[in-house]
């Protein structure tokens, strides 16, 4: 297996990085390109950019932002938020994104995952699942779907998803630890890499998540002080997590 990955997540709205708690109350935390470059320099294995507003009239600005990120970074990055068609995804990849993440649109029309995988290859298709109490939520966590997270992850895999990005809404932004039970259940149900998300507060939390998942998403824990990634990597190494030599 490849090495465990640390993936800082940057929520983007109107060209700025923002962060909320439990998907609410957005605060400005910086410039997407600069913050991405800082994380890359600090040893991030990948980055995820999520366009949290995902408005149609904001698409040209997002494409331009993706191109600026690709010009600056030499590590992979995923872009998500508002991807509803193969054309949306192609535009993001053409601008320099390595993967797209789909969420609500895939829930509404699961065939979208297969269309994306056929056109772009599974390795470029991340299915993001937001879950609360084991149940999938859509539209940035605002709507219940009646679907189980484990069941939807399995279905997404059958449709050709390349990775599952699993966010536990209840722990997101709380720094109280990842939802290990849910993450383990999803990781056991699929043969795809799983990215654990929501709740990182300490190195121990991240190490525990990397025991059951192949990657850990990091947001709140880093945004006030991006240099935290450097010390976090050191602490994880001391806990026995085999991270790559980033230099």
């Amino acid at each position, binding site marked *: *297996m*490849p*090495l*465990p*990955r640390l993936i800082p997540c940057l929520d983007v709205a109107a060209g700025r990085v923002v962060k909320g708690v439990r998907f609410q109350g957005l605060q400005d935390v910086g410039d997407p390109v600069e913050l991405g470059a800082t994380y*890359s320099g600090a040893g991030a*294995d990948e980055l995820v950019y999520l366009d949290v507003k995902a408005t149609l009239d904001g698409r040209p600005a997002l494409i331009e932002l993706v*191109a600026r990120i*690709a*010009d600056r970074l*030499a*590590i*992979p990055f995923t872009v998500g938020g508002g991807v509803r068609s193969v054309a949306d995804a*192609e535009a993001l*990849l*053409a*601008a*320099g*994104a*390595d993967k797209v993440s789909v969420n609500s649109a895939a829930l509404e029309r699961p065939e979208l995952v297969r269309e994306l995988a*056929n*056109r*772009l*290859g*599974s*390795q*470029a298709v991340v299915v993001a699942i937001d879950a609360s109490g084991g149940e999938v939520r859509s539209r940035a966590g605002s709507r219940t779907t009646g679907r189980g997270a484990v069941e939807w992850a399995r279905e997404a895999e059958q449709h050709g998803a*390349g*990775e599952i990005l699993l966010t536990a809404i209840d722990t997101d932004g709380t720094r109280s630890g990842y939802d290990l039970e849910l993450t383990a259940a999803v990781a056991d149900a699929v*043969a*795809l*890499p799983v990215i654990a998300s929501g709740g990182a507060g300490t190195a121990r939390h991240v190490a525990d998540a990397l025991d059951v998942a*192949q*990657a850990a998403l990091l947001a709140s824990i880093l945004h006030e002080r991006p240099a935290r990634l450097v010390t976090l990597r050191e602490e994880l190494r001391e806990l026995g997590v085999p991270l*790559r*030599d*980033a*230099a």
Partner: protein
Amino acid sequence: MNVAVCAYGAGNVRSVVVAFERLGAAAEVTEDPRDVAAADLAVLPGVGSAASAMDGLRERGLDEALRERVADGGATLGICLGLQLALEETEEDGGVGGLGIVSGRAVRIRDGRVPRIGWATVEPSGEAFYFAHSYAAETPAATARSEGIVAVAEQGSFVGVQFHPEKSGDAGARFLERCLSRA
């Protein structure tokens, strides 16, 4: 130094161009077989699935251009699917004939989680590179491996890498610099 990056379908080729530009090379995305013939280094990046990629290469005459280029000893780099397409065939999409530039075939990865995504150490160099693939080469031309999987294959003037040097930070940049210096 002039680099021609083959465009033949949907995917991220921009990052390949940017990576070479950072190293001071003049890199351009092209669909024109004449550019592939004339460049100091030709690059076959990996985008999409095997069947659609081979169709895309054929439609543009890039398949012949790449074969002729390698036969003439022109430096050529295949990245990820670009390595797999250079083989004789791949299991992907129910079986697809490749360019036949490198002996061997691409087979589905059978161990671990698939796609195999992330940074992994490549031996003998010991450096970590970024991989994202579901198929892997089986070839006598292998010159480096990662966890038993073929990471680099070299035959004649063709070098194929399973990892993404353009996404592998400083280690990737050093690799691309070596490709340029050999071209």
